[in-house]
């Protein structure tokens, strides 16, 4: 572009510039955002993307800014050029027309758009034009002026370019700074202090940028002002120039015309002069040379009359004879008349002239009486010419010089016209040219005179020439310079311009001048006014447009700044909101903790039933409140994008059990059947965030529990997403059930027999499921979780906004059921975070099914070191047993089977007691597989008679029944609640145990344990402390607390369970003690300690352990000496009085494994410790 512009400058691209100009004009009228401020700035508010795009747009901006700068320069230069070319070419009509045709060509071709090709073509064309121009330029001065202007323009161009580039540089710098500041805020730092600092910076940066931008704008405005001023000067100069030019041409025209007229007049006069001279010679020849004279008055008159056409300017000629006084009498006698005196002041008309009345001439030395004359002046015959003063002078000079002599202008006799008299002397012989005046006087015999009527003379000439109307001619006799005599022309009216041409009438002693003037004053210089005015208007327009553009940029920038400010404020508000939420939540939780603790204590005291009920209600409400606060906090975290998922291995089934136990109370209360099922294809250990996964499911199940009122079921099932696509015959039984939920007699083939919505529809919209993308990382698995219920369903109109925070189906819902309505929203966010989708299908009155997918990693069994293996003892003895499940509902049976399979029990299913009998008898006969050791009967198929029959059958079928090696199969009842009637069943030994639904691993193991080991029933209550004792016995435990009393208490408590306790009083000491290798099995760490608190100490310990593990890996430390405890990880448990979630999370974050509340509670201690120590 720079090259082009420069090239254009050198090619003198008046036409190119014009086309550019036109284009810009169009562009600007369409879009005022010439400066690239095309409203592209932060239209994109997605902060994460801003960073990338900002750089791009800055680049674009810079580019555009430069182009516009160049365009501006080009316009200015082009304008100057254009008008220069115009003014230079004005004197030359040809050139002008060429130029115009050039322009016309340009426009007619429609070259408004402007490609490089066209540009070059145009400049080429222009080059031709230019090469022609010098030939056309006749005017050298014009050329030089053009050259000068070219230089000026170059200089101007350089200057302006420098200025504009500077300005644009300033602006772009400001912009880029502003934009550079953006990425700063993209990484939300956890530290609030930092954030605030950042915000301060954020506030400052736009301000700086703004001031820079403002100064740039000021610069531009100044530049614009300079430009306009410059253009004003240029237009004034242009006006002046064109005006001068016009004036000059006018003057030249006048001079030409005047000179022409003068020359013609002179020529004509000289022609008549010569004729008069010839006449003089004629008279000399024929009057004096012959004797007697060859001519008389008659011949002379006739001759002169007939040759008058040769002297068009003379009114008449006459011949006067030189007569001395001595000869007068003789002459008078001879002629017959006396010599008359010429009378002055006689103004009587020629017709009335009577020479007889005239007085005779007074006596003089000499006389010059007229003897011959043309008829037009016959009245002067006999008048003595010497008696007129002027005539006398004339005669004397004429005879002395021998040339034609003119009188000064005077009124001719008897004609009121001003005229001059030309006099030639007639000599008697031909004199040599160098004759002295005396010789000439002596040789003089007479005088020939001719009178010229000047007015008619000039008028005749002027008539011959055109444009008599345009100029006024005056002819002056300027022999006497101080008093010139006006010989022709009206009075002088000053019209400004005057040209004087001198006239030579052949008489050197007389001087004549011709003065010419234009008749009219010069017209106003329209051309100059128009050009200059046009230039001025155009430059003002450009100025205005640029001013508007600058203003607009200014405004946009101001808006932008405001927006940034508002954005910063909004962000600050957002941060403040999150902080507020966090703070307030924390502030609420702290006292709530006190409330809950006190309530717990209150409940432990001796209360009457009413009081206890109140206290329990208060406690439950408090817990609800805490959970709501946690939800709100979650929402805030999700909104601020600060929620991060963990990547830890966990047992999905255990998580589901956890959820089930959470809702088991409520579901039993409502008599809802709650069941979970995990497909066999789902790996045991998966890697992900168990807490969040649990939260999603808990949310969904919680909703279902909330909205399912009358009897029904809630069914949570987990499958691999790929299973959905499997062929139906290979498909999981439970999944298949969803596919063809058909009515089976009076009941639906569902968990509880109630109808449900089509589960498959709930994930119909999932993109991940529909597109087959099998080539994912092999360790990634996609889980499909569905939660179906037989609740009241979601109304159609509410289904759209169900995932919006704080929205419930309708406002009455919250009144009915309570809740904040953010559970689903949080769930959706969490699912999104897990890379999955959530969807649902709901029908009013039938129920809802929620489905979601989540992408997790396949975990290795070994990777889950911390997996709770408390139940292993009890499960190991159940492994390999066989069980028969009697249930008429297939799905429910499958769920039972799933749970039993987890314990390693083989399961057969019978749909009715009768079928069960068949199985039992078959089993006894074939006995191919392991013997049947338990029969689980759902309460719906429970019939007392059949049971007895089965019992008998079982007893019969087992040939070795009664012996220790083959105990008879036990009977278990599956029931949703423990009614007294059922307890009675148990006590009456009809069944060996009752399994209360919802089923979970602990219930099964507990029940089986009880049934299979009869003697230990009563020890159940004491089991836990004993377990704790078992757990901790002989363990080396480090207690870290700065408080001596606390230390003592903790020590005492742990010692009680058989642990070997070491105490230290500071974080530093703890770090020292736990520097691997060491003998400690666990560490209990106080959080708040001076110098180094628990968090920091833990972090340090973990760092050291990591180092040590590296050493082990690299083989520096032999593994054998340490036992197989690789990787090294000492369980560290926080001791805290603050058991709310936030602290817990922080504990986990810095590498702790759990926490126990202070003071120790047995149960909690147990559950916390149990995870780390296997039962022995």
């Amino acid at each position, binding site marked *: 572009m720079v090259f082009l512009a420069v090239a254009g400058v050198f090619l003198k691209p008046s036409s190119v510039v014009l086309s550019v100009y036109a284009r810009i004009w169009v562009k600007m009228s369409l879009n005022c955002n010439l400066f690239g401020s095309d409203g592209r700035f932060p239209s994109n508010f997605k902060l994460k993307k801003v960073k990338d795009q900002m750089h791009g747009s800055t680049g674009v901006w810079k580019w555009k800014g430069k182009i516009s700068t160049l365009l501006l320069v080009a316009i200015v230069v082009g304008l100057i050029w254009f008008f220069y070319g115009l003014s230079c070419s004005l004197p030359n009509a040809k050139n002008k027309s060429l130029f115009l045709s050039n322009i016309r060509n340009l426009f007619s071709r429609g070259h408004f758009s402007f490609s490089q090709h066209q540009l070059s073509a145009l400049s080429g064309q222009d080059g031709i034009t230019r090469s022609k121009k010098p030939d056309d330029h006749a005017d050298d001065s014009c050329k030089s002026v053009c050259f000068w202007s070219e230089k000026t323009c170059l200089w101007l161009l350089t200057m302006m370019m420098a200025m504009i580039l500077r300005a644009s540089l300033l602006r772009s710098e400001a912009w880029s700074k502003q934009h550079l500041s953006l990425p700063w805020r993209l990484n939300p730092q956890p530290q609030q202090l930092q954030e605030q600092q950042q915000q301060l910076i954020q506030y400052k940066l736009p301000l700086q940028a703004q001031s820079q931008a403002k100064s740039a704008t000021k610069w531009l405005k100044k530049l614009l002002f300079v430009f306009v001023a410059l253009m004003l000067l240029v237009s004034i100069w242009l006006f002046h120039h064109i005006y001068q030019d016009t004036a000059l041409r006018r003057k030249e025209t006048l001079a030409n015309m005047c000179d022409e007229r003068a020359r013609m007049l002179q020529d004509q006069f000289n022609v008549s002069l010569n004729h008069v001279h010839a006449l003089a010679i004629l008279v000399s020849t024929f009057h004096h040379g012959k004797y007697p004279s060859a001519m008389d008055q008659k011949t002379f008159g006739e001759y002169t009359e007939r040759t008058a056409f040769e002297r068009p300017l003379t009114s008449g000629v006459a011949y006067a004879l030189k007569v001395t006084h001595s000869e007068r009498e003789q002459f008078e006698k001879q002629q017959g008349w006396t010599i008359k005196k010429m009378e002055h002041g006689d103004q009587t008309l020629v017709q009335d002239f009577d020479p007889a009345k005239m007085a005779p001439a007074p006596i003089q030395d000499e006389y010059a009486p007229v003897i011959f004359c043309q008829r037009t002046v016959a009245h002067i015959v006999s008048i003595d010419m010497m008696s007129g003063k002027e005539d006398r002078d004339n005669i004397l000079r004429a005879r002395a010089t021998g040339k034609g002599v003119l009188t000064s202008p005077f009124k001719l006799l008897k004609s009121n016209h001003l005229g001059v008299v030309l006099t030639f002397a007639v000599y008697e012989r031909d004199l040599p040219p160098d004759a002295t005046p005396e010789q000439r006087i002596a040789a003089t015999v007479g005088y020939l005179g001719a009178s010229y009527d000047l007015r008619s003379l000039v008028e005749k000439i002027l008539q011959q020439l055109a444009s008599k109307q345009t100029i006024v001619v005056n002819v002056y006799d300027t022999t006497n310079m101080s008093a010139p005599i006006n010989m022709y022309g009206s009075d002088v009216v000053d019209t400004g311009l005057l040209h004087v041409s001198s006239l030579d009438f052949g008489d050197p002693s007389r001087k004549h001048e011709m003065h010419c003037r234009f008749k009219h004053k010069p017209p106003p210089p329209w051309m100059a006014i128009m050009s200059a005015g046009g230039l001025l208007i155009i430059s003002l327009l450009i100025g205005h447009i640029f001013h508007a553009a600058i203003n607009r940029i200014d405004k946009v920038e101001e808006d932008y700044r405001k927006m940034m400010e508002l954005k910063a404020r909004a962000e600050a508000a957002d941060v403040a909101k999150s902080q507020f939420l966090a703070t307030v939540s924390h502030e609420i939780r702290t006292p709530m903790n006190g409330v809950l603790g006190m309530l717990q*204590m209150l409940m*432990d005291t001796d209360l009457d039933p009413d009081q206890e009920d109140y206290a329990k209600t208060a406690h439950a409400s408090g817990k609800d409140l805490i959970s709501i606060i946690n939800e709100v906090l979650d929402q805030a975290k999700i909104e601020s994008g600060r929620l991060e998922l963990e990547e830890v291995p966990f047992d999905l089934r255990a998580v589901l059990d956890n959820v089930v136990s959470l809702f088991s109370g409520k579901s039993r209360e409502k008599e809802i059947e709650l069941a979970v099922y995990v497909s066999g294809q789902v790996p045991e250990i998966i890697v992900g965030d168990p807490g969040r996964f649990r939260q999603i499911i808990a949310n969904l199940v919680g909703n279902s529990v909330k909205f399912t009122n009358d009897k029904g079921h809630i069914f949570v099932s987990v499958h691999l997403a790929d299973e959905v696509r499997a062929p139906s015959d290979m498909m999981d039984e439970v999944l298949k059930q969803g596919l063809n939920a058909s009515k089976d007699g009076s009941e639906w083939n569902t968990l509880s027999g109630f109808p449900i919505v089509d589960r498959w529809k709930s994930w119909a919209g999932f993109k991940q499921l529909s597109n087959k993308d099998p080539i994912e990382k092999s360790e990634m698995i996609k889980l499909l979780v569905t939660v179906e219920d037989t609740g009241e369903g979601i109304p159609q109109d509410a289904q759209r906004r169900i995932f919006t925070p704080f929205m419930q189906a309708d406002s009455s819902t919250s009144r009915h059921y309570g809740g904040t309505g953010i559970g689903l929203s949080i769930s959706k966010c969490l699912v999104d975070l897990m890379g999955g989708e959530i969807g649902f299908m709901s029908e009013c009155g039938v129920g809802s099914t929620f489905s979601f997918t989540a992408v997790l990693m396949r975990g290795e069994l070994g990777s889950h070191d911390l997996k709770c293996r408390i139940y292993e003892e009890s499960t190991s003895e159940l492994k390999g047993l066989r069980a028969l499940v009697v249930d008429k509902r297939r799905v429910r049976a499958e769920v039972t089977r799933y749970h039993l399979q987890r314990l390693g029990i083989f399961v057969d299913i019978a749909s009715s007691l009768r079928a069960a009998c068949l199985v039992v008898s078959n089993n006894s006969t074939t006995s191919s597989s392991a013997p049947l050791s338990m029969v689980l009967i759902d309460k719906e198929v429970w019939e007392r008679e059949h049971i007895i029959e089965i019992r008998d059958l079982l007893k019969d079928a087992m040939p070795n029944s009664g012996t220790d090696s083959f105990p008879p199969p036990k009977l278990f009842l599956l029931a949703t609640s423990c009614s007294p009637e059922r307890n009675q069943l148990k006590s009456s030994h009809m069944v060996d145990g009752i399994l209360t639904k919802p089923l979970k691993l602990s219930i099964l193991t507990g029940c089986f344990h009880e049934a299979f080991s009869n003697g230990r029933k009563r020890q159940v209550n004491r089991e836990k402390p004993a377990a704790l004792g078992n757990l901790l016995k002989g363990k080396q435990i480090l207690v870290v*607390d*700065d*408080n*001596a*009393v*606390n230390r*003592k*208490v903790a020590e*005492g*408590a742990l*010692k*009680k369970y058989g642990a070997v306790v070491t105490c230290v009083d500071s974080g530093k000491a703890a770090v020292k003690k736990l520097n691997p290798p060491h003998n400690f099995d666990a560490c209990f760490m106080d959080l*708040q300690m*001076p110098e180094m608190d628990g968090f920091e100490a833990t972090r340090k310990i973990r760092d050291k352990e990591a180092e040590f593990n590296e050493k082990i890996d690299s083989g520096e430390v032999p593994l054998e000496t340490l036992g197989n405890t690789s990787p090294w990880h000492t369980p560290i448990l926080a001791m805290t*009085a603050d058991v709310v979630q936030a602290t817990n999370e922080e504990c986990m974050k810095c590498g702790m494994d759990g926490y126990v509340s*202070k*003071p*120790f509670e047995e149960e909690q201690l147990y559950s916390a410790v149990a995870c780390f120590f296997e039962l022995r």
Partner: protein
Amino acid sequence: MEVSEMQRQFVEYSQSLFREGYLDSQFTQLQQLQDESNPDFVMEVVTLFFEDSERLIRDLTCALDQQIVDFKTVDAHVHQLKGSSSSIGAQRVKNACVEFRNFCEEQNADACRACLQQVNQEYFLVKSKLQTLFTMEQQIVAAGGSIPIMD
């Protein structure tokens, strides 16, 4: 005095302590931790508590007598005291400490001083009560009786 009478008095006295809120369940837990292997556990802990608390109260008095009170130190001391008292179950001391800490946060020196008085008072109360309790215990032991277990 009969051993049984002494035992009855002991039980009544300790119950009154719980009832009046001088002690809480934590103290019971402490008592449960005491067994044959560790016969003077409660005594040891409580003595430790006395020493610790007296030191802390002394430090607190010192700190609050300063012209410019360093609330950070005060807070740390009170935190310690709170921890110890809650560990042995000296509930009223603990509650006084909680209140104390609130005023620390507000940096209210006068209120802190008042609180210190309150804490001091509560401490001496619980100290005398516990000492009485231990005396009774020793008497029972000396009389050859066993200390009744409360639940």
